[in-house]
């Protein structure tokens, strides 16, 4: 034996799971929605996505090189994912400088200023989106209607409102369920196709990247509260950013609760807040606000919603 033996405490084997494999798993799960966005919105979707991703990577690189001077974490895929998710929350005709501002807020303010991945309180992409929504409300709420515009030109196309406006009685026509499901409507580029997002959900469940608890409890609570508030549950489920939010944003590891019971509570409250905002708030869409609000409650949920300890409740039989 030429070399020295390694000695470490048990366990001596590892599952091989890593931060980057989880992040890239989520990115793969986003591919169907990305394809759908290009199909519906054309070149605009591509440029917005590309700009957001590039800006996020650049900002993370700059912060780590000049401010934090820590270990580079660019290759773990989390900045890439933040960029993708941010762009999915933006309209495809958004001016690119606004996209870059969003990326700056997401990475520099919401993620790196807290100490990087793992320490952020809020979902970075959502912070970016909400910042833009408040700062640039006009640009953020006019969308090209999916599938109607000439997809591969960047000239001004017909813009319309999401399906949430008619749902709220703000004018406009109600769409068919099929259009809602496949995404033939106005909206941010990644959120329109519930079908594509659900494929991603199935993929993440299969790869065990996330568990079903958060998305399913959001779906259930949205449906139940919609019924209670005498709204159309199916329309609420498939319109706006709900699918994207429930599957990809609320399940963000860092800002969601740790225990299963906590996850369900978190999901139910997100659904409830979303419906409240959609029904009674000033904004037609409430998913982002609901998730951010619940992000801030996550530490409290973690403190009180403990997993069931072994032997705590003795069940016989």
């Amino acid at each position, binding site marked *: 034996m030429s070399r*020295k*033996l*390694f*000695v*470490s*405490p048990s366990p001596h084997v590892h599952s091989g799971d890593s931060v980057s494999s989880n992040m890239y798993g989520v990115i793969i799960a986003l591919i169907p929605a990305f394809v759908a966005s290009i199909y519906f919105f054309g070149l605009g979707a591509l440029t917005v996505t590309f700009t957001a991703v590039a800006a996020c990577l650049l900002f993370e690189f700059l912060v780590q090189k000049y401010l934090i001077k820590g270990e580079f974490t660019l290759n773990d895929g989390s900045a890439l994912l933040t960029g993708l998710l941010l762009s999915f929350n933006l309209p495809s005709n958004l001016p690119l400088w606004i996209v870059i501002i969003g990326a700056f807020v997401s990475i520099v303010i919401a993620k790196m200023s807290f100490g990087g991945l793992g320490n952020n309180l809020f979902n970075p992409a959502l912070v970016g989106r909400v910042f833009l929504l408040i700062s640039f409300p006009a640009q953020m709420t006019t969308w090209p209607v999916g599938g109607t515009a000439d997809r591969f030109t960047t000239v001004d196309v017909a813009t319309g409102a999401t399906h949430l406006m008619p749902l709220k009685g703000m004018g406009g026509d109600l769409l068919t369920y099929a259009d809602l499901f496949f995404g033939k409507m106005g909206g941010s580029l990644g959120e329109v196709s519930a079908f594509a997002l659900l494929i991603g959900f199935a993929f993440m469940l299969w790869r065990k990247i996330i568990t079903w608890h958060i998305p399913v409890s959001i779906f259930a609570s949205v449906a139940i509260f919609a019924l209670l508030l005498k709204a159309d549950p199916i329309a609420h489920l498939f319109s706006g950013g709900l699918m994207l939010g429930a599957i990809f944003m609320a399940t963000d590891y860092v800002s969601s609760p740790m225990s299963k019971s906590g996850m369900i509570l978190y999901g139910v409250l997100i659904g409830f807040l979303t419906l409240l905002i959609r029904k009674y708030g000033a904004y037609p869409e409430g998913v982002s606000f609901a998730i951010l609000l619940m992000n801030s409650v996550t530490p409290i949920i973690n403190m009180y919603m403990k997993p069931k300890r072994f032997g705590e409740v003795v069940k016989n039989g």
Partner: protein
Amino acid sequence: MNVILISVILLAVVGGVSALILYFVAQKFHVLEDARIDVVQEILPAANCGGCGYPGCRGFAEACVKADTLEGLYCPVGGSEVMSKVGSILGREAAQTVPMVAVVRCQGDCDKRPQTNEYDGPTNCSIATSLYGGDTDCSYGCLGHGDCVVVCGFDAIKMNPETRLPEVDEDKCTGCNACVKACPKVIIELRKKGPRSRRIYVGCVSKDKGAQTKNACAVGCIGCSKCFKVCEFDAITITNNLAYIDPNKCKLCRKCPEVCPTNAIVELNCPPRKKKEEDVISND
């Protein structure tokens, strides 16, 4: 105009009521504290190191004020100086204590104590200790993961990356005992600072038999008892193959380091000895 007026009045009323509530609550729940506690706390070093055995400097100040004598109460950081000040405030006699300093009783650096395996766990001495004897053949020696460095509140102990041993900065060390408690191998000891900071101690804690120690480390105490025989003041005892120099009996005569075959006895801050001939030759 009306709006502004209403707002101002409303705010003033709310503010006034809150102030009243605060005032009465403060009166009702006021805790009478001995004013001297604050004065004593002012004098203390405010390091909150716990070296005195109380939770923080405030706790120690309370204990000092409450106690009838200052016996048994000692701030190792501030030393006699601070304690006599505390004593004068409280009108009590402060015990005179000798200043102490931490010494690291292991000299097995990478050359003298060869590594035999590679530790691949968390950088934490306690975890490594519960796992095994360490990455050298000596299971008593320093592991070099720096638990002592982490607990030191005075920046007085540093890990030397070359030797992988901690080094005490005796100007900064206050003798608070934190590192002694943190070291799972009980390598660090508090010793009297000594006249002109001169100290002689055994830089080894290995209780292994001589042959085993020698095998593992070039500077380990092998329990040969040469120092024991040469000591004229009965300061040296040998138990479990390990020599120990009693700081209260040691007169710093510097005979024992000379006879130690493994150079396990450390002399600190002593003037250089007259060089022997062979040394002179080898140094040229």
